[in-house]
Protein backbone atom coordinates (compact mmCIF):
# COMPACT_ATOMS: atom_id res chain seq x y z
CA UNK A 1 0.00 0.00 0.00
CA UNK A 2 1.25 3.48 -0.83
CA UNK A 3 1.92 5.93 1.95
CA UNK A 4 -0.46 8.47 0.42
CA UNK A 5 -3.33 6.01 0.97
CA UNK A 6 -2.44 5.75 4.64
CA UNK A 7 -4.89 8.40 5.80
CA UNK A 8 -7.74 6.64 3.95
CA UNK A 9 -7.31 3.34 5.78
CA UNK A 10 -10.23 2.54 8.11
CA UNK A 11 -9.97 -1.07 9.39
CA UNK A 12 -13.73 -1.64 9.67
CA UNK A 13 -14.51 -0.59 6.11
CA UNK A 14 -11.32 -1.47 4.25
CA UNK A 15 -12.04 -3.72 1.25
CA UNK A 16 -9.05 -4.57 -0.97
CA UNK A 17 -9.78 -4.39 -4.66
CA UNK A 18 -9.71 -7.85 -6.27
CA UNK A 19 -9.34 -8.51 -9.98
CA UNK A 20 -10.93 -11.54 -11.61
CA UNK A 21 -8.48 -14.34 -12.37
CA UNK A 22 -10.76 -15.84 -15.01
CA UNK A 23 -12.49 -19.20 -14.83
CA UNK A 24 -9.72 -21.47 -16.14
CA UNK A 25 -8.44 -22.42 -12.68
CA UNK A 26 -12.01 -23.16 -11.47
CA UNK A 27 -12.61 -25.76 -14.20
CA UNK A 28 -9.18 -27.28 -13.63
CA UNK A 29 -9.96 -27.70 -9.90
CA UNK A 30 -13.36 -29.20 -10.72
CA UNK A 31 -11.71 -31.80 -12.98
CA UNK A 32 -9.09 -32.66 -10.33
CA UNK A 33 -11.71 -33.02 -7.56
CA UNK A 34 -13.93 -35.18 -9.78
CA UNK A 35 -11.06 -37.46 -10.78
CA UNK A 36 -9.97 -37.86 -7.14
CA UNK A 37 -13.54 -38.73 -6.07
CA UNK A 38 -13.84 -41.33 -8.85
CA UNK A 39 -10.43 -42.75 -7.85
CA UNK A 40 -11.73 -43.05 -4.27
CA UNK A 41 -14.73 -45.09 -5.38
CA UNK A 42 -12.72 -47.29 -7.78
CA UNK A 43 -10.13 -48.01 -5.08
CA UNK A 44 -12.89 -48.89 -2.62
CA UNK A 45 -14.02 -51.77 -4.83
CA UNK A 46 -10.71 -52.92 -6.30
CA UNK A 47 -7.94 -52.36 -3.76
CA UNK A 48 -7.28 -54.98 -1.07
CA UNK A 49 -7.00 -53.52 2.49
CA UNK A 50 -3.27 -54.33 2.79
CA UNK A 51 -3.27 -53.89 6.54
CA UNK A 52 -4.69 -50.39 6.67
CA UNK A 53 -2.72 -49.07 3.71
CA UNK A 54 -5.95 -48.63 1.74
CA UNK A 55 -7.38 -46.44 4.51
CA UNK A 56 -4.22 -44.32 4.49
CA UNK A 57 -4.71 -43.89 0.74
CA UNK A 58 -8.28 -42.63 1.31
CA UNK A 59 -7.11 -40.16 3.95
CA UNK A 60 -4.24 -38.98 1.72
CA UNK A 61 -6.68 -38.44 -1.17
CA UNK A 62 -8.99 -36.55 1.22
CA UNK A 63 -6.13 -34.24 2.20
CA UNK A 64 -5.28 -33.62 -1.48
CA UNK A 65 -8.96 -32.75 -2.14
CA UNK A 66 -8.93 -30.46 0.92
CA UNK A 67 -5.83 -28.73 -0.47
CA UNK A 68 -7.54 -27.98 -3.77
CA UNK A 69 -10.75 -26.74 -2.11
CA UNK A 70 -8.90 -24.45 0.32
CA UNK A 71 -6.17 -23.25 -2.05
CA UNK A 72 -8.23 -22.75 -5.18
CA UNK A 73 -11.93 -22.42 -4.28
CA UNK A 74 -11.29 -20.51 -1.05
CA UNK A 75 -8.49 -18.45 -2.66
CA UNK A 76 -6.04 -19.26 0.12
CA UNK A 77 -3.30 -19.53 -2.53
CA UNK A 78 -3.80 -15.87 -3.39
CA UNK A 79 -3.91 -14.61 0.21
CA UNK A 80 -0.84 -13.36 2.05
CA UNK A 81 1.23 -16.14 3.56
CA UNK A 82 0.73 -14.58 7.03
CA UNK A 83 -3.03 -15.12 6.82
CA UNK A 84 -2.66 -18.65 5.45
CA UNK A 85 -0.27 -19.53 8.29
CA UNK A 86 -2.59 -18.03 10.95
CA UNK A 87 -5.40 -20.31 9.82
CA UNK A 88 -3.53 -23.50 8.89
CA UNK A 89 -0.88 -23.75 11.63
CA UNK A 90 -3.37 -23.74 14.57
CA UNK A 91 -5.44 -26.35 12.77
CA UNK A 92 -2.44 -28.71 12.70
CA UNK A 93 -2.89 -29.01 16.49
CA UNK A 94 -5.75 -31.46 15.85
CA UNK A 95 -3.12 -33.99 14.77
CA UNK A 96 -2.28 -34.31 18.46
CA UNK A 97 -5.93 -35.09 19.23
CA UNK A 98 -6.01 -37.61 16.37
CA UNK A 99 -2.97 -39.47 17.72
CA UNK A 100 -4.20 -39.34 21.33
CA UNK A 101 -7.79 -40.42 20.79
CA UNK A 102 -7.03 -43.17 18.25
CA UNK A 103 -4.49 -44.58 20.70
CA UNK A 104 -7.13 -44.38 23.43
CA UNK A 105 -9.75 -46.08 21.23
CA UNK A 106 -7.34 -48.91 20.54
CA UNK A 107 -6.76 -49.22 24.29
CA UNK A 108 -10.53 -49.59 24.90
CA UNK A 109 -10.54 -52.42 22.36
CA UNK A 110 -7.63 -54.35 23.81
CA UNK A 111 -8.33 -53.85 27.53
Amino acid at each position, binding site marked *: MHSDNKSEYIPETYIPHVESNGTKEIWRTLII*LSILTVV*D*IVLYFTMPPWGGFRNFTFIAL*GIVKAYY*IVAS*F*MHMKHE*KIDLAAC*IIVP*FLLVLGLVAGLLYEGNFWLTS
Partner: protein
Amino acid sequence: MSTDTSATVTETKTWSGGRSPFNVSYGKLMMWIFLLSDAFTFSSLLIGYGAVRFSYPAPEALVEKIAPMSHLSDDFIEQMQEIGAFSEKHWPSPELVFNHFPFLHGVHLPLMFVSLMTFILIFSSVTMVLAVEAGHRMDKKKVGIYMFYTILGGLAFLGCQAWEWTQFITEGATLEHNPFGPAHFAALFFMVTGFHGFHVFSGVVFNIMIYVNARRGMYEKRGHYEMVEKVGLYWHFVDLVWVFVFTFFYLI
Protein backbone atom coordinates in the same frame (compact mmCIF):
# COMPACT_ATOMS: atom_id res chain seq x y z
CA MET B 1 16.46 8.20 -2.49
CA SER B 2 13.04 9.19 -1.19
CA THR B 3 11.38 6.15 -2.83
CA ASP B 4 13.98 3.91 -1.13
CA THR B 5 13.05 5.23 2.31
CA SER B 6 9.31 4.83 1.81
CA ALA B 7 9.85 1.25 0.64
CA THR B 8 11.72 0.32 3.82
CA VAL B 9 9.11 2.07 5.96
CA THR B 10 6.22 0.02 4.53
CA GLU B 11 8.38 -3.11 4.62
CA THR B 12 9.07 -2.94 8.35
CA LYS B 13 5.81 -1.46 9.60
CA THR B 14 3.28 -4.14 8.67
CA TRP B 15 1.78 -4.17 12.14
CA SER B 16 2.23 -0.53 13.12
CA GLY B 17 -1.14 0.62 11.83
CA GLY B 18 -2.36 2.49 8.81
CA ARG B 19 -2.75 -0.62 6.71
CA SER B 20 -4.31 -4.07 6.76
CA PRO B 21 -1.53 -6.48 7.78
CA PHE B 22 -3.19 -9.43 6.00
CA ASN B 23 -4.52 -7.25 3.17
CA VAL B 24 -8.04 -8.58 3.72
CA SER B 25 -11.20 -6.92 4.96
CA TYR B 26 -12.28 -7.19 8.58
CA GLY B 27 -15.26 -9.38 7.66
CA LYS B 28 -13.26 -11.84 5.61
CA LEU B 29 -10.66 -12.27 8.35
CA MET B 30 -13.44 -12.92 10.87
CA MET B 31 -14.99 -15.48 8.51
CA TRP B 32 -11.64 -17.29 8.30
CA ILE B 33 -11.31 -17.33 12.08
CA PHE B 34 -14.89 -18.61 12.46
CA LEU B 35 -14.13 -21.36 9.93
CA LEU B 36 -11.02 -22.31 11.92
CA SER B 37 -13.15 -22.71 15.05
CA ASP B 38 -15.78 -24.65 13.11
CA ALA B 39 -13.03 -26.88 11.73
CA PHE B 40 -12.04 -27.66 15.34
CA THR B 41 -15.67 -28.60 16.11
CA PHE B 42 -15.93 -30.96 13.16
CA SER B 43 -12.49 -32.39 13.94
CA SER B 44 -13.64 -33.20 17.46
CA LEU B 45 -16.70 -35.01 16.11
CA LEU B 46 -14.72 -36.96 13.51
CA ILE B 47 -11.88 -37.80 15.90
CA GLY B 48 -14.44 -38.89 18.50
CA TYR B 49 -15.89 -41.12 15.80
CA GLY B 50 -12.38 -42.44 15.11
CA ALA B 51 -11.83 -43.29 18.79
CA VAL B 52 -15.13 -45.19 19.06
CA ARG B 53 -14.45 -46.90 15.74
CA PHE B 54 -11.00 -48.00 16.94
CA SER B 55 -12.58 -49.45 20.09
CA TYR B 56 -14.45 -52.03 17.96
CA PRO B 57 -12.92 -54.69 15.71
CA ALA B 58 -12.90 -53.88 11.99
CA PRO B 59 -15.65 -55.44 9.83
CA GLU B 60 -14.80 -58.95 8.70
CA ALA B 61 -14.48 -59.51 4.96
CA LEU B 62 -17.39 -61.48 3.52
CA VAL B 63 -16.64 -65.01 2.37
CA GLU B 64 -18.89 -64.47 -0.62
CA LYS B 65 -18.64 -60.92 -1.97
CA ILE B 66 -21.92 -59.33 -3.07
CA ALA B 67 -21.43 -57.91 -6.55
CA PRO B 68 -22.67 -54.36 -7.21
CA MET B 69 -25.92 -54.28 -9.25
CA SER B 70 -26.94 -57.72 -7.93
CA HIS B 71 -30.39 -58.35 -6.48
CA LEU B 72 -31.06 -56.88 -3.05
CA SER B 73 -33.72 -58.90 -1.27
CA ASP B 74 -36.11 -57.38 1.27
CA ASP B 75 -34.65 -59.45 4.12
CA PHE B 76 -31.07 -58.40 3.30
CA ILE B 77 -30.45 -57.10 6.83
CA GLU B 78 -31.66 -60.38 8.41
CA GLN B 79 -29.41 -62.33 6.04
CA MET B 80 -26.42 -60.21 7.00
CA GLN B 81 -27.22 -60.69 10.69
CA GLU B 82 -27.41 -64.46 10.18
CA ILE B 83 -24.01 -64.76 8.51
CA GLY B 84 -22.52 -62.41 11.12
CA ALA B 85 -21.77 -59.47 8.82
CA PHE B 86 -24.00 -57.29 11.06
CA SER B 87 -23.18 -57.92 14.69
CA GLU B 88 -22.98 -55.87 17.87
CA LYS B 89 -19.45 -57.21 18.33
CA HIS B 90 -17.85 -55.40 15.40
CA TRP B 91 -18.29 -52.33 13.22
CA PRO B 92 -20.44 -52.86 10.07
CA SER B 93 -18.99 -52.57 6.58
CA PRO B 94 -20.33 -49.33 4.98
CA GLU B 95 -20.95 -50.96 1.59
CA LEU B 96 -23.53 -53.29 3.18
CA VAL B 97 -25.32 -50.45 5.01
CA PHE B 98 -25.35 -47.65 2.42
CA ASN B 99 -26.37 -49.66 -0.63
CA HIS B 100 -29.70 -48.10 -1.64
CA PHE B 101 -30.49 -45.69 -4.44
CA PRO B 102 -33.77 -43.80 -4.97
CA PHE B 103 -36.11 -45.35 -7.57
CA LEU B 104 -33.87 -48.44 -7.84
CA HIS B 105 -35.41 -50.59 -5.16
CA GLY B 106 -34.00 -54.09 -4.87
CA VAL B 107 -30.63 -53.36 -6.50
CA HIS B 108 -27.39 -53.57 -4.51
CA LEU B 109 -25.64 -50.25 -5.29
CA PRO B 110 -23.03 -49.72 -2.57
CA LEU B 111 -21.87 -46.11 -2.04
CA MET B 112 -23.37 -44.89 -5.32
CA PHE B 113 -25.84 -42.54 -3.65
CA VAL B 114 -23.25 -40.85 -1.39
CA SER B 115 -20.95 -40.48 -4.38
CA LEU B 116 -23.78 -38.65 -6.14
CA MET B 117 -24.18 -36.42 -3.06
CA THR B 118 -20.44 -35.70 -3.14
CA PHE B 119 -20.66 -34.63 -6.77
CA ILE B 120 -23.71 -32.44 -6.08
CA LEU B 121 -21.77 -30.59 -3.38
CA ILE B 122 -18.63 -30.24 -5.55
CA PHE B 123 -20.71 -28.80 -8.41
CA SER B 124 -22.48 -26.34 -6.14
CA SER B 125 -19.04 -25.26 -4.88
CA VAL B 126 -18.03 -24.61 -8.49
CA THR B 127 -21.11 -22.47 -9.18
CA MET B 128 -20.30 -20.57 -5.98
CA VAL B 129 -16.74 -19.72 -7.18
CA LEU B 130 -18.22 -18.73 -10.52
CA ALA B 131 -20.55 -16.32 -8.67
CA VAL B 132 -17.55 -14.89 -6.78
CA GLU B 133 -15.65 -14.49 -10.06
CA ALA B 134 -18.65 -12.75 -11.67
CA GLY B 135 -18.76 -10.46 -8.61
CA HIS B 136 -15.13 -9.44 -9.26
CA ARG B 137 -16.25 -8.34 -12.73
CA MET B 138 -19.30 -6.53 -11.21
CA ASP B 139 -21.54 -8.70 -13.40
CA LYS B 140 -24.83 -8.47 -11.49
CA LYS B 141 -26.76 -10.81 -13.80
CA LYS B 142 -24.18 -13.63 -13.70
CA VAL B 143 -23.86 -13.39 -9.90
CA GLY B 144 -27.62 -13.93 -9.67
CA ILE B 145 -27.60 -16.89 -12.06
CA TYR B 146 -24.70 -18.69 -10.37
CA MET B 147 -26.06 -18.02 -6.86
CA PHE B 148 -29.35 -19.54 -8.01
CA TYR B 149 -27.56 -22.72 -9.19
CA THR B 150 -25.65 -22.85 -5.91
CA ILE B 151 -28.91 -22.71 -3.95
CA LEU B 152 -30.36 -25.47 -6.15
CA GLY B 153 -27.27 -27.63 -5.47
CA GLY B 154 -27.61 -27.07 -1.74
CA LEU B 155 -31.30 -27.97 -1.77
CA ALA B 156 -30.57 -31.08 -3.88
CA PHE B 157 -27.96 -32.18 -1.33
CA LEU B 158 -30.39 -31.63 1.56
CA GLY B 159 -33.04 -33.63 -0.31
CA CYS B 160 -30.60 -36.50 -0.80
CA GLN B 161 -29.69 -36.43 2.86
CA ALA B 162 -33.35 -36.45 3.89
CA TRP B 163 -33.88 -39.50 1.67
CA GLU B 164 -30.86 -41.27 3.14
CA TRP B 165 -31.94 -40.54 6.72
CA THR B 166 -35.45 -41.79 5.92
CA GLN B 167 -34.00 -45.01 4.48
CA PHE B 168 -31.73 -45.44 7.51
CA ILE B 169 -34.56 -44.80 10.00
CA THR B 170 -37.00 -47.07 8.11
CA GLU B 171 -34.48 -49.89 8.41
CA GLY B 172 -34.63 -49.49 12.18
CA ALA B 173 -31.74 -47.18 13.04
CA THR B 174 -32.21 -44.88 16.05
CA LEU B 175 -29.82 -43.07 18.35
CA GLU B 176 -29.97 -46.02 20.74
CA HIS B 177 -30.26 -49.04 18.51
CA ASN B 178 -29.62 -50.16 14.94
CA PRO B 179 -29.68 -53.50 13.12
CA PHE B 180 -26.24 -53.03 11.54
CA GLY B 181 -23.90 -53.16 14.50
CA PRO B 182 -22.95 -51.30 17.69
CA ALA B 183 -25.40 -48.60 18.84
CA HIS B 184 -22.59 -46.04 18.46
CA PHE B 185 -22.60 -46.59 14.71
CA ALA B 186 -26.02 -45.04 14.02
CA ALA B 187 -25.73 -42.52 16.87
CA LEU B 188 -22.50 -41.12 15.41
CA PHE B 189 -23.94 -41.24 11.89
CA PHE B 190 -26.94 -39.13 12.92
CA MET B 191 -24.79 -36.77 14.98
CA VAL B 192 -22.10 -36.06 12.40
CA THR B 193 -24.14 -36.05 9.19
CA GLY B 194 -26.87 -34.14 11.05
CA PHE B 195 -24.41 -31.49 12.21
CA HIS B 196 -23.02 -31.24 8.69
CA GLY B 197 -26.53 -31.17 7.19
CA PHE B 198 -27.49 -28.32 9.49
CA HIS B 199 -24.43 -26.43 8.22
CA VAL B 200 -25.62 -27.04 4.66
CA PHE B 201 -29.08 -25.79 5.63
CA SER B 202 -27.63 -22.61 7.17
CA GLY B 203 -25.48 -22.19 4.05
CA VAL B 204 -28.56 -22.40 1.82
CA VAL B 205 -30.29 -19.74 3.96
CA PHE B 206 -27.22 -17.45 3.67
CA ASN B 207 -27.04 -18.10 -0.07
CA ILE B 208 -30.70 -17.15 -0.51
CA MET B 209 -30.09 -13.89 1.39
CA ILE B 210 -27.07 -13.08 -0.81
CA TYR B 211 -29.02 -14.03 -3.94
CA VAL B 212 -31.89 -11.69 -3.05
CA ASN B 213 -29.52 -8.85 -2.17
CA ALA B 214 -27.50 -9.32 -5.37
CA ARG B 215 -30.64 -9.38 -7.50
CA ARG B 216 -31.95 -6.23 -5.82
CA GLY B 217 -28.68 -4.49 -6.73
CA MET B 218 -27.51 -3.89 -3.17
CA TYR B 219 -23.93 -4.95 -3.89
CA GLU B 220 -23.81 -3.05 -7.17
CA LYS B 221 -24.75 0.10 -5.25
CA ARG B 222 -22.14 -0.76 -2.61
CA GLY B 223 -19.47 -1.01 -5.30
CA HIS B 224 -18.22 -4.49 -4.46
CA TYR B 225 -19.48 -8.07 -4.12
CA GLU B 226 -17.46 -9.03 -1.05
CA MET B 227 -20.46 -10.54 0.73
CA VAL B 228 -20.59 -13.18 -2.01
CA GLU B 229 -16.95 -14.04 -1.26
CA LYS B 230 -17.53 -14.30 2.49
CA VAL B 231 -20.56 -16.55 2.19
CA GLY B 232 -18.64 -18.43 -0.53
CA LEU B 233 -15.90 -19.21 2.01
CA TYR B 234 -18.51 -20.74 4.32
CA TRP B 235 -20.06 -22.74 1.47
CA HIS B 236 -16.69 -24.19 0.41
CA PHE B 237 -15.98 -25.08 4.00
CA VAL B 238 -19.19 -27.14 4.10
CA ASP B 239 -17.96 -28.94 0.96
CA LEU B 240 -14.56 -29.46 2.60
CA VAL B 241 -16.14 -31.04 5.68
CA TRP B 242 -18.21 -33.36 3.47
CA VAL B 243 -14.99 -34.61 1.83
CA PHE B 244 -13.90 -35.88 5.24
CA VAL B 245 -17.34 -37.14 6.31
CA PHE B 246 -17.39 -39.10 3.02
CA THR B 247 -13.90 -40.49 3.65
CA PHE B 248 -14.42 -41.50 7.28
CA PHE B 249 -18.04 -42.65 7.26
CA TYR B 250 -18.35 -44.29 3.88
CA LEU B 251 -14.91 -45.29 2.63
CA ILE B 252 -13.04 -46.40 5.74
